[in-house]
């Protein structure tokens, strides 16, 4: 059984870590933009803000399974193939990016307006406020948001099998659902549970350690 579980676990880690990274690269700047372009914020741009909100809402509306197929051309362009474990990273990243944007937005909005006002009163520029004030002040909450993203991606990655990807979720579906090999299904689900618990634990701890508030 271990010879089935371990490669699948590695595939899950591979898909989830890379798609977390890429969804952060796309979603984090979007989250920052959502916050700073809002009315009354440091870079007020109402039109851009509305546009971003619209795009993010549309992307979040797609059922993941449909999005996976819709992004085939993009996968082809980026990784050269449309199916397989690596190809799954593309739709996973694209699906998670708007989610990340929203999570980051709500974390950054927790930063007290007074602190932003103080930074402005000190003559700080917009990049200085973003990197030296907003992000460090929101860090504990951002860590929890990233934890949530990772766990969400573990869930999404279970659907990777639909386009030929591997991973634990796929293993559980293939063996448990299609072949009625319940023991393998139970084992893979158990490993997923451990993974989720472990990540949540680490995320919570990290957030508490960095939080000085």
């Amino acid at each position, binding site marked *: 059984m271990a010879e089935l579980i371990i490669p699948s676990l590695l595939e899950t880690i591979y898909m989830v870590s890379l798609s977390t990274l890429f969804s952060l690269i796309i979603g984090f700047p979007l989250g920052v933009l959502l916050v700073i372009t809002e009315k009354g914020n440091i870079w007020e741009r109402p039109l851009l803000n509305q546009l971003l909100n619209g795009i993010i809402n549309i992307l979040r509306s797609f059922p993941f399974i449909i999005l996976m197929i819709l992004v085939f051309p993009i996968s082809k362009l980026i990784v050269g193939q449309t199916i397989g474990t690596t190809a799954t990273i593309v739709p996973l990243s694209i699906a998670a990016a708007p989610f990340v944007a929203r999570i980051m937005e709500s974390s950054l909005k927790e930063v007290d307006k007074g*602190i932003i006002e103080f930074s*402005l*009163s*000190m*003559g700080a520029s917009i990049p200085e406020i973003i990197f030296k004030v907003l992000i460090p002040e929101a860090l504990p909450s951002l860590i929890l948001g990233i934890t949530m993203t990772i766990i969400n991606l573990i869930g999404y990655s279970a659907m990777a099998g639909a386009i030929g990807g591997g991973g634990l979720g796929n293993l559980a579906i293939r063996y448990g659902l299609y072949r009625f090999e319940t023991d393998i299904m139970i084992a893979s689900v158990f490993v997923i549970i451990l993974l989720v618990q472990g990540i949540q634990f680490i995320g919570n701890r990290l957030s508490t350690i960095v939080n*000085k*508030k």
Partner: protein
Amino acid sequence: MIKIENLSKSFKSVNNTIWALKDVSLHIKKGEIFGIIGLSGAGKSTLIRCINRLEEPTSGKIFIEGVEITALDKKSLRQSRKNMGMIFQHFNLLQQKTVYKNIAFPLELERLPKKEIDRRVDTLLEYVELSDKRDAYPSQLSGGQKQRVAIARALANNPKILLSDEGTSALDPKTTKSILELLNRIRKELNVTIIMITHQMEVIKDICDRVAIIENGKIIEMNTVEELFKNPKTSTAKSFISSLNPIDENGLIDPKKFKGTLIRLSYLGESAKQPIVSHMVKKFDIDVNILSGNINQLMSTSAGYLILELTGNAQEINQAIEFLKSKDVSVEVI
């Protein structure tokens, strides 16, 4: 130092326009502690925020040392903000950074070398008497200590102006006193001009040189603190002064209930120290009954009032009142 000319600020909402400031003109002198007092919603916070343009004025001009702040572009504005420190009611410290890092923040924005930042922060910590809290986080500090950190941080760039937006409003009376003492020291030793926004008359009384009273976006009275206490003109000014003394003289003393002549003496500074009433009693054949009195210790002097009932021969009373007037106290027959 700071000149504000015909400053107005309006906030537009869907169906109406609210004027937070209407045609405000002010001239604040170098090295002075200038108080702006008003009830909440009077426009005082908007006014102080216009000085460093955290709030953009709708019309009017602001000059600081001859430079028209209201005409600066964004970049020059940021530069000029570095000459103005600001402290807030809720301190606005960076919660995730140590005391040291908080004070170093404006210096890091200036990209000063690490060694110089170190030296400057240590000097500032010593100045606000918090050297032992260097590595503490804001959540570990009391309100007074937080405001001291905020003051040190506001002073980091050696500003010429310090803006205090209700800087003592969240503190208890004892801590308020110590913060006010610190601000007064900053004015004296560092020659910083301080603008204090407050709704507390104690703040005005304790450290301000001059004061403007703001109501519905307009300055309704402006004077030296001594003069304001001696001779308040508007009812708002009077109620601010009486807020210092819980018993309201006007409510208590009804001239109709007394047989004699009621007079109200207002005295200021030197005249408060002389036994004028005693001299009057010895000199004229009248009786004096003290009904009410009070003295307020202002920063540099004292101001107070006394309400007396004078009984006796009408002519003697008139002469006594003339005598008082000659002694540099203002006399008002109630």
